[in-house]
């Protein structure tokens, strides 16, 4: 294989064949840099070899943080499947100071493509100061400019995530997603007597926390894209009903206009509206609710099951599932109403469509011949690709960059239970997210501020 500059990396998310991979443009790339093509056998991508030495300790920082900062970055980038960290035990030297010139030969000898150099110091006011620089080892060049962060010491993990995002973005050209959180349902107890609790964690599974709410059943929490709130379905009244929770106070508010049975809520991209389904006289239809006014507007009047709606990022359309044609299929309707257009035509049942934040794809659950799949298709229904298969895979959720999905997978049988997984939209890199309980219904936040 041609030894390549990491500045010209693979267009890993190519929708067509993954056998021939072009290098994508990178923000930091120089125009005169040579373009190399890399051929990958059988879709196997050689990950970028990454060295992340422990951050250099400066004035007053402790060695645990200097080590952990580097470890979280390695774990994040390794989790993409596009990078592979070289264990620190293989290093022939360790950087001693942030400003001394990099000894590139020490890193090329262990076949590192990319070197991450960082430092951490404690300021007199108690804040952490974290600096980092990113190096292309073979080109002996810096990739982008160094960055400096200040934060209170409890937030060190977020600095690792922000640095990971910067590295990922500079090297792959794709959008950031590490500095984000996941809200989900934590499940405990036997299958016929499950306790379900709303929970939140960082995207890597760290900082797991249960949210406070009445003990009744809860379903499918989803983030507001603009406020520190979630929306979810709860059974506090005895019926499924949509509620809002403020994540800072954990205060729950009900929406009086959504009395009856309401569920499957999602926010619009601007956070001003929710789309959901409501059941009246046994018939489930789609409604749009404006949060500031409490005005509810019916979008579908079909006597089929219309549910699992999701806004397009521009707020103009809704994708939803309906069995109006006899079986569950995906449809798109204007938020102004009118006729719904069917977009899925394959064999099997299509459910839980979710519009990508980039607007280009729709992720869905497909049930075919007794197996469940997570898949993606273009907005016009073409280029359907199934990414997973199992006894029960359900409920895809997009990463903020529209390149990774989380979903939950439930194992069969009396001891069957759900766990959250992530997968690249190329279909590679299926990973189980470590959680301290069973976990289902993941929803991914925006990049944090």
């Amino acid at each position, binding site marked *: 294989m041609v030894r390549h500059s990491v500045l010209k990396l693979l267009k890993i998310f190519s929708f067509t064949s993954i056998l021939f991979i072009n290098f994508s443009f990178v923000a930091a790339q120089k125009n005169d840099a040579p373009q190399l093509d890399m051929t990958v056998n059988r879709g196997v991508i050689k990950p970028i070899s990454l060295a992340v030495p422990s951050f250099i300790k400066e004035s007053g920082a402790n060695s645990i943080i200097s080590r952990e900062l580097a470890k979280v970055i390695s774990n994040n980038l390794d989790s993409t499947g596009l990078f592979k960290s070289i264990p620190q035990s293989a290093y022939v030297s360790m950087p001693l100071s942030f400003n001394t010139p990099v000894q590139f030969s020490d890193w090329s000898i262990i076949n590192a493509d990319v070197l991450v150099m960082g430092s951490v110091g404690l300021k007199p006011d108690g804040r952490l100061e974290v600096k980092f620089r990113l190096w292309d080892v073979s080109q002996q060049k810096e990739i982008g400019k160094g960055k400096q962060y200040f934060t209170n010491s409890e937030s060190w993990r977020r600095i690792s995530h922000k640095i990971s995002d910067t590295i990922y973005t500079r090297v792959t050209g794709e959008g950031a997603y590490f500095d984000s959180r996941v809200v989900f349902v934590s499940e405990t107890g036997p299958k016929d007597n499950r306790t379900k609790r709303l929970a939140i964690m960082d995207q890597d599974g760290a900082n797991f926390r249960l949210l406070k709410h009445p003990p009744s059943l809860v379903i499918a929490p989803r983030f507001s894209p603009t406020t520190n709130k979630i929306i979810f379905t709860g059974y506090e009244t005895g019926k*499924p009903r949509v509620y809002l929770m403020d994540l800072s106070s954990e205060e729950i508010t009900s929406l009086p206009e959504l009395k009856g049975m309401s569920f499957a809520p999602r926010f619009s991209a601007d956070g001003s509206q929710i789309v959901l389904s409501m059941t009246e006289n046994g018939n489930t239809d789609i409604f749009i609710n404006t949060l500031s006014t409490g005005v509810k507007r019916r979008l579908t009047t079909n006597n089929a099951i219309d549910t699992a709606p999701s806004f397009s990022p521009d707020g103009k359309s809704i994708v939803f599932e309906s069995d109006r044609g006899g079986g569950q299929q995906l449809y798109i309707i204007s938020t102004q109403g009118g006729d719904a257009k069917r977009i899925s035509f394959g064999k099997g049942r299509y459910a*839980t469509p979710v519009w990508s934040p980039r607007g280009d794809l729709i992720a869905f659950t497909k049930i075919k011949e007794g197996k469940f799949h997570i898949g993606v298709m273009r907005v016009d229904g073409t280029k359907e690709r199934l990414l997973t298969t199992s006894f029960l895979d*359900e409920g895809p959720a997009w990463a903020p960059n529209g390149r990774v999905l989380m979903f939950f997978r439930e194992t069969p049988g009396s001891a069957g239970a759900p766990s959250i997984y992530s997968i690249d939209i190329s279909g590679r890199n299926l990973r189980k997210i470590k959680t301290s309980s069973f976990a289902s219904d993941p929803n991914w936040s925006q990049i944090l501020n």
Partner: protein
Amino acid sequence: MLSFKICDIKIHKFRTVDEAKIMKNIGLAIFVILLLVGCENNKSFKNSLDKAQISESDIEYFQNLVGDTVLFTVDQSGLRPDAIGILNAQVNWLKEKKFLPITIEGHADEQGTREYNLALGARRATAVREFLLAKGIEQDRISIVTYGKERPLRVCSNEECWSKNRRAVTVVGKKIVE
């Protein structure tokens, strides 16, 4: 404050239908007394009804001898002949217990997605509700709720369990007040 110890009639298992009928008649007699006495004071009557509504004997009789559960075919909410037999028995019993509110729970098996199954459970509960209404059960006695696949009765992952989980359950003495 009136207090009737209706719950003290312990009927754990009926061996025969006749035995159950006898017990049912005892139960009915007590309810009649309750109704008569209760008429003297409306407020107390209401309070005591709350207790009467959750009488264990009634619930057990309804569950075991009338039949509180009807089953459905995969992805269907139409009432099968076996369901109609059970629902007719429910109607007869509910007509005798005029004061008892009911909640119909609709359920689905695990072979569908969560949202769809909530909608399907609602269809099933509604199918039962419509049947009861058509047979003259008063509308304001009936609440419905869907649980989708959230509350499986049986936990194996094959048709033996799934067929039991695709159900609508009539829960007596329960009304959902929003």
